[in-house]
């Protein structure tokens, strides 16, 4: 490696930020600036300053002024992480006429002051970090952002309330929307609920009008009973392949009269919508208000498909809409942005065998109870035991099932406390039974939530603080026969208790969809270790992902209640609408590119790209990076055995120069100038 030929001509400005006392409390920032001005002169530094807040307008103006007056050609800012203010300082450089990519932000906050306490050592380390930045910035090249047009259509995956909200916002904004839903109807989990906390609105009453709006909106194309199978392209220009499963119902002819569902002789336990508590037919819509109204034939359970006879639906259909010859269809969509709103799965309480779900009949999951209490559910809203007739006289509701438990999920599922309170209220209201809620901590933090808690307290629900150890039907004491006994340590009373009840409801937590990882891979985004999709920034960019053009909304990002889900749906829509308005987007020019002469087509890099940006040309036996898809992560750059891939902004020269700067000798200085190791030491 040789130094750039233009080294002597570069004029570098170094700016050291105090960040209030965030940096200055641990690092002697004045010393760092003076040192850089005096001791890095031979590396091109012509000015070095320190300032209380470099990111302030005054701090930025200082840089701009120096660029203009001192003719700076490179800028190094020693401050916080590039995640926070890289753009701020790049933009300042740009305003002063310097290409923004000739600015380097080195972190002496996250990487120095916040992680050290020894002021002397932290100051010395800051000098090394600044030296690394100076050496690196010498190798920077001016870069221009890549501009790509944005296709006005948007794909929304998942037709729950998050997807519905996003679809309506974008469609109302005048742009076309495709909404793809795996089930026969949109509506999601919310359509299964009876009441919604804390206001006890009927879920269907507030949801179904939205569903109808989606179904009738001129800008929305609904693709239910469909799944995305392939995603190609990049922000602004995605090509999405959707498999539209055969409904075996001609939707042009079907009028939704549901005669077919009445006549179908095959009854199947509905494990999805009715959570296993009710039945549906082999031809079905999941519920009466389903949107679209068209039923589907469940091929696995249809007598005709399995045995070759029956066709009752076909015989009775008044419009001749049944079509047994329908085939799965593959549809290709062009969209500019994608919103993933694929929701959650309920934690399976079978995984906690000592709570008895699946073994003890009268232990119910939260979703089962939702169906039980739903007026349109299998018991028409009557809260009864598994026998279908007996009303419980006492009910135990267990919180945090599968959540806040290091054996299952460490996270809090957010909704279970309020859900448990809602169940307590409904049980009290409908049956007058004695209700016990077993909780670890009561978390009722959102608007009007705690008031609801107070209300349920006043209604006479009994609250016991303690994680339930066991639910059992093995009676030991008088009065326990024929009951489910809840064994719990009451941590407020400091004693073990056994509470016999008729019914147990497990307020189960939320989990990522079982295929969440595969879906994330399909769309080129990342999951956390738990499986929730990772947002671009946990606070400031909660609905974007690290992949440009892919947004997330609702529980797919993490457990949340309906209001937050709706907020995210709307937020994702706002982000997408903003993009569509801009008509084009400027992409970070930090991209990988493959030197076609050096690439031998070994294909090591081919399946490494998390964004599927690398394509292989069979004819020429070389690989190529699609610059619009590439997000500049550098995976392929590191993996290329031939060194044929380089990353703009992260070239080998830049990285090695930064290392050389960090490792320079005489950084602490006793009068000698800092010097590169390889120039000083004869090995």
């Amino acid at each position: 490696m040789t130094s750039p030929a233009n080294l002597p001509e570069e004029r570098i400005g170094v700016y050291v930020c105090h960040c209030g006392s965030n940096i200055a409390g641990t690092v002697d920032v004045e010393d760092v600036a003076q040192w850089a001005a005096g001791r890095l002169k031979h590396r091109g530094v012509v000015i070095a300053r320190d300032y209380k807040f470099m990111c302030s307008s005054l701090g930025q103006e200082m840089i701009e002024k120096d660029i203009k007056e001192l003719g700076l050609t490179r800028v190094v800012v020693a401050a916080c992480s590039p995640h926070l203010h890289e753009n701020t300082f790049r933009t300042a450089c740009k305003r002063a006429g310097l290409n923004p990519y000739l600015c380097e932000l080195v972190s002496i906050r996250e990487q120095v002051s916040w992680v050290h306490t020894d002021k002397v050592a932290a100051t010395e380390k800051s000098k090394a970090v600044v030296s690394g930045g100076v050496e690196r910035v010498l190798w920077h090249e001016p870069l221009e952002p890549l501009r790509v047009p944005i296709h006005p259509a948007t794909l929304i995956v998942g037709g729950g309330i998050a997807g519905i909200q996003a679809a309506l916002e974008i469609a109302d904004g005048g742009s076309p929307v495709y909404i793809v839903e795996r089930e026969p109807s949109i509506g999601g989990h919310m359509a299964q609920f009876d009441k919604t906390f804390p206001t006890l609105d009927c879920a269907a009453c507030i949801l179904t009008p939205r569903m109808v709006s989606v179904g009738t909106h001129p800008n929305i194309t609904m693709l239910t009973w469909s799944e995305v199978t392939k995603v190609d392209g990049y922000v602004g220009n995605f090509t999405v392949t959707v498999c539209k499963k055969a409904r075996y119902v001609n939707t042009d002819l079907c009028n939704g009269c549901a005669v077919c569902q009445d006549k179908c002789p095959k009854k199947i336990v509905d494990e999805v919508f009715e959570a296993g508590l009710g039945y549906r037919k082999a031809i079905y819509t999941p519920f009466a208000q389903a949107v679209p109204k068209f039923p589907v034939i469940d091929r696995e359970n249809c007598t005709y498909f399995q045995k070759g006879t029956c066709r009752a639906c076909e015989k009775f259909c008044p419009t001749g809409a049944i079509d047994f010859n329908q085939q799965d269809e593959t549809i290709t969509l062009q969209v500019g942005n994608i919103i993933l709103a694929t929701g959650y799965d309920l934690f399976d309480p079978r995984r906690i065998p000592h709570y008895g779900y699946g073994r003890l009949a009268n232990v119910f999951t939260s979703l089962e109870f939702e169906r039980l209490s739903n007026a349109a559910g299998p018991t028409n809203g009557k809260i009864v035991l598994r026998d279908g007739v007996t009303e419980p006289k006492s009910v135990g509701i267990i919180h945090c099932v599968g959540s806040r438990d290091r054996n299952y999920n460490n996270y809090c599922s957010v909704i279970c406390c309020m859900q448990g309170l809602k169940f307590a209220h409904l049980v009290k209201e409908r049956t007058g039974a004695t209700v016990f809620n077993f909780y670890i901590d009561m978390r009722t933090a959102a608007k009007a939530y705690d008031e609801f808690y107070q209300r349920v307290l006043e209604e006479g629900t009994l609250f016991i603080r303690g994680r339930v150890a066991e639910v059992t039907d093995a009676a030991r004491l008088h009065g326990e026969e024929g009951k489910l006994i809840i064994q719990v340590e009451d941590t407020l009373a400091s004693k073990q208790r056994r509470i016999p009840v008729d019914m147990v409801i497990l307020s189960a937590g939320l989990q990522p969809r079982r295929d969440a990882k595969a879906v994330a891979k399909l769309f080129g985004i990342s999951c956390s270790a738990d499986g929730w999709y990772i947002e671009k920034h946990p606070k400031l960019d909660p609905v974007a992902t690290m992949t440009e053009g892919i947004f997330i909304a609702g529980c797919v990002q993490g457990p949340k209640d309906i209001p937050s889900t709706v907020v995210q749906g709307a937020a994702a829509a706002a982000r997408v609408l903003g993009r569509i308005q801009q008509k084009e987007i400027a992409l970070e020019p930090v991209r990988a590119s493959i030197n076609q002469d050096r690439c031998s087509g070994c294909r090591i890099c081919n399946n490494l790209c998390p964004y599927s940006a690398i394509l292989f040309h069979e004819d020429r036996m070389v690989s190529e990076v699609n610059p619009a898809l590439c997000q500049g992560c550098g995976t392929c750059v590191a993996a290329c055995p031939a060194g044929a891939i380089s990353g703009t902004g992260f070239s080998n020269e830049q990285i090695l120069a930064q290392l050389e700067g960090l490792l320079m000798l005489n950084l602490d200085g006793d009068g000698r100038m800092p010097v590169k190791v390889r120039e000083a030491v004869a090995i």
Partner: protein
Amino acid sequence: MSENGAKPKFAMYWAAACGGCEIAVLNIHEKILDVDANFDVVFWPVAMDAKYKDVEAMPDESITLCLFNGAIRNSENEEMAHLLRRKSKILVAFGSCACEGCIPALANLTTPEAIFEAAYAGPTTDDGHDIRPQPEWAAPEGIMLHLPKFYRVVKTLDQVVPVDYTMPGCPPESHQIGAVVDLVIKALHGEADLPPAGAVIGAGGSTVCDECKRARNEKKINRFVRIQHVKPDPALCLLEQGILCSGPATRSGCTALCPAAGAPCVGCYGPAEGVLDYGARLMSAVASVIDSTQPEEIERILDGIPDPAGSFYRFNLGGSLLRAGKPAWSKQ
């Protein structure tokens, strides 16, 4: 031809080397006659008798072309490097040892003491007197005897003297040597230009895969096997079959001889253009296509590679960023 009508002078020298480079030069067959016709061979220890003092007596830069093979293992190697640099117009680091340290530089993973222990006190050699090579020894006859000093770290030629060209390979392939000889002769006759100073000559610009005929797919490796334990598919990429083939990281130029014969590339042509650390490149490439996300399984798969340092850095340790392992640096 040179100004006084005499033929340009040719030299070839071996430092820490095996002699294979010399054989490779002779293996250019009748083209060796062109060398003889066009050059005056003034120094070539393997082929003709000559003394170091003869070289010292030559005017500086009087040798037109010097092919220097072998690594810098001891003080004699280094002295000869300086001497031949001074006497030569064009000094070529010839072969893997001179270019990047090759097998001799694998000794950099250990200490000279351990090397001597293995060489002079191992099961194959036991002199019974525990004698080790001494740089200086007063003989009973009253004379001081000198031996070259054994270095702690084997170096490449360009780590001790400036080099005009490097020609990789262990050894360089004869057809490449022939082509370089042709080119130099043409250049001497003014019919061609020499490559720019510092260039890699006698090799290609991409990697061995470019010359390999085997079919290649996206790579996913779930086990490593050794060539002697399997019967490889003759048409499929060896790396995809779990055989550690260094082809993807190794400079092209050899016509992919080893993979064509069913053996994995071992990397003798060294790093591709612009690559600073061959072993690190190859390791990160191989690690990136391990088909598992489970730490224990990854560990198990990687355990299928015996002697990783010797496999990934077989030819390149001396020329790598690391150059040597910690024991070699440490002064015991």
